[in-house]
């Protein structure tokens, strides 16, 4: 994992400030800091709780992290641009209802199976495209554009919901959350596939490299004649597709199409990405960084329960550790990050 992450980092630095040594001390902390935090957390929880060390718990944690991982792969592309995407909650709501209504369910006679999931992912992509077009063509700040699209998604989902919850009957989609290969549910493998594809797109395609460069110095790219618009729209669309897949996965886990299927994922995924070292200001980090963040967030949620921290203080404790982790990783960079908004 680390060699890839280091390479990404070096690439980004090269775009931002040509001629600077590939890895200054600050970059090293930013790249390896999150992994170190993850290791510390795992060791501390492992020492404190024998259950935490069990294989069963590893399965349970990975399964719980699967949906968040897919959402975070998507949002990473947008964060690399230096934009933000707050639409995951709404897009997932619409996509969750779509999946549950297109595959075998308790509401209608449709049974499209695989195609139901494909349509869901495409619908997510359409929402992402809408995000991109609104923010790039209409020059609406991505914060506002995606918040609006999220509301549209919730609206669409509410109309589809129509007062009666569609329960999932399709054995294939339900099986994602229950069928296990080598102890892990199929959801974990789906997430893994998505991470590999996301990493490949980010590292080895023009889309990924340009997205990184846009986040580093968009004005420079524009001045050198690169048409950045289409790349930005494409990055939002990739994110939308990820939300669509994540929604289908969440639907499988929850056993029903729910308007609340994406509740909390917007901020959980942004938190995970940033904790992992993908910067809000863009141009730094990447899919693998973000995945370290996903693991940190998941280990925290799981470990705090297992070592018996009272539910009344868990939320506050999580926030505290996240703030310390992010602050610590950004500490050596604080002079170079002149403006933080």
């Amino acid at each position, binding site marked *: 994992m680390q060699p890839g992450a280091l390479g990404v980092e070096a690439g980004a630095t090269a775009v931002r400030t040509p001629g600077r040594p590939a890895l200054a001390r600050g970059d090293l902390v930013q790249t390896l800091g999150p992994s170190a935090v993850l290791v510390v957390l795992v060791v501390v929880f492992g020492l404190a709780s024998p259950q935490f060390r069990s294989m*069963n718990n590893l399965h*349970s944690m990975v399964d*719980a992290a699967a949906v968040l991982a897919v959402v975070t792969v998507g949002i990473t592309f947008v964060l690399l641009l230096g934009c933000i995407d707050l639409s995951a909650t709404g897009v997932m709501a619409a996509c969750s209802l779509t999946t549950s209504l297109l595959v075998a369910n308790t509401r209608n006679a449709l049974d499209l199976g695989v195609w139901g999931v494909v349509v869901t992912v495409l619908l997510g992509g359409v929402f992402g495209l809408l995000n991109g077009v609104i923010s790039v063509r209409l020059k609406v700040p991505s914060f506002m554009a995606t918040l609006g699209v999220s509301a549209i998604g919730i609206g669409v989902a*509410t109309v589809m919901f129509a007062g009666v*919850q569609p329960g999932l009957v399709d054995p294939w989609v339900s099986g994602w959350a229950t069928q296990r290969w080598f102890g892990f549910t199929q959801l974990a493998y789906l997430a893994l596939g998505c991470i590999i594809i996301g990493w490949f797109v980010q590292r080895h395609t023009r889309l990924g490299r340009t997205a990184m460069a846009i986040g580093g110095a968009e004005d420079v790219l524009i001045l050198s004649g690169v048409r950045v618009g289409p790349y930005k729209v494409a990055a939002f669309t990739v994110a939308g597709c990820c939300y669509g897949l994540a929604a289908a996965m969440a639907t499988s*886990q929850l056993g*029903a199409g729910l308007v609340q299927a994406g*509740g909390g994922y917007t901020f959980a995924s942004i938190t995970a990405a940033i904790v992992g070292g993908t910067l809000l200001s863009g141009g730094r980090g990447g899919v693998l960084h973000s995945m370290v963040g996903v693991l940190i967030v998941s280990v925290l*949620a799981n470990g705090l*329960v297992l070592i018996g921290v009272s539910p009344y203080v868990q939320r506050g404790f999580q926030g505290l550790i996240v703030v310390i982790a992010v602050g610590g990783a950004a500490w050596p960079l604080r002079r170079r990050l002149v403006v933080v908004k």
Partner: protein
Amino acid sequence: MIIKTHRGTRLSLVAVLAAAALGLTACSSDSSPADEASPAAGGETTAAAETTAACDPADVVLIGQVRNETNPYEASWLDGGDAFAAQVGLSQQRLTYDGESTKQQEQIRQVLASGDAACTVLNVLPNNDSDTTPIVEAAQEAGAWVITQWNKPADLKVADYDHWVAHITYDGVEAGRMTGEALFEAMGGSGNIIALQGVLDAAAAKDRFTGLEGALADNPGITLLDQQTANFTRADALTVTRTLLTEYGDQIGGIWTANDDMALGALQALEAAGLLGQIPVTGMDAVPEALQAIADGNMTATISADGMWQGAIGLAMGYCVATGELNVADIATRAFFAEQTLVTADNADAFITPTLNSSDFECANVFNRIAAPLP
């Protein structure tokens, strides 16, 4: 940029003017219809005005307001309201405020400002305890009839307002105890349980858990292994249950949850672990999916507050008062716990296809489901 701001100010000017104009028309329409409306709205001794202010049944405006229709329980509320409205030949205005307190207040103000407030009946689910005060004050001032359910600050007394027809709620402590005991019975009276709480600072969550603690105290054979919050949501319940299953494994003999959404999340976790139907699970609120799970034998029990009845009864109470068939001053108990029923495999089928009994909504019967007056 400059042009934009110009256009912005111009737009907002237009909006202000339009709002002013609307305000004017609202005022004039308020005072113009039927003379009987004005004494009720303006007079201070409204008790005397009530008898004279009876509305023609055809003029009564029925309004049901809940958080959203994406929640099966609240959707059934509004369906119940529709059913009552049809029974008296009217239609219900369905309002939803997406769980936003400010939006709820805004909707109430709009409704009260348009149309004849004295013939308006509001059956409201306040977002939080603190939201009830301004809603009741607004209705009182406008002369409309308001019925609130579930949430109310303890020190706000229904008796202090003569346009606040009733406040209906359910005894959460009793509900928590009932499902707790049903759970212990399904476990054969001994073993270990885990509990999923609701939002920790919500009164309903606290009461329900207090009820469980009471049941635990009465049943020394049962041990509470752990209690966690799952925020009343299915997704959180799934994650938390999975973690607790890892921690305690086959020590867990039963799962108590503070609502059905969390119970359904726990069932999903059990299914993923291959334990569905082997560990008793209880919920609360009687949402359709939970009822189905009980009928299928995967879940043990839930509590029915009868959402359809709640949506209908509030409108019925207000309708009876607005048309003069009931007088607020004559109603003995206006703030009460309503009766709730434990749903198990024995009676789940009856709740899966809920029906309203039209005689429940005749004016002589609308206050029949009182379990106990509010303390």
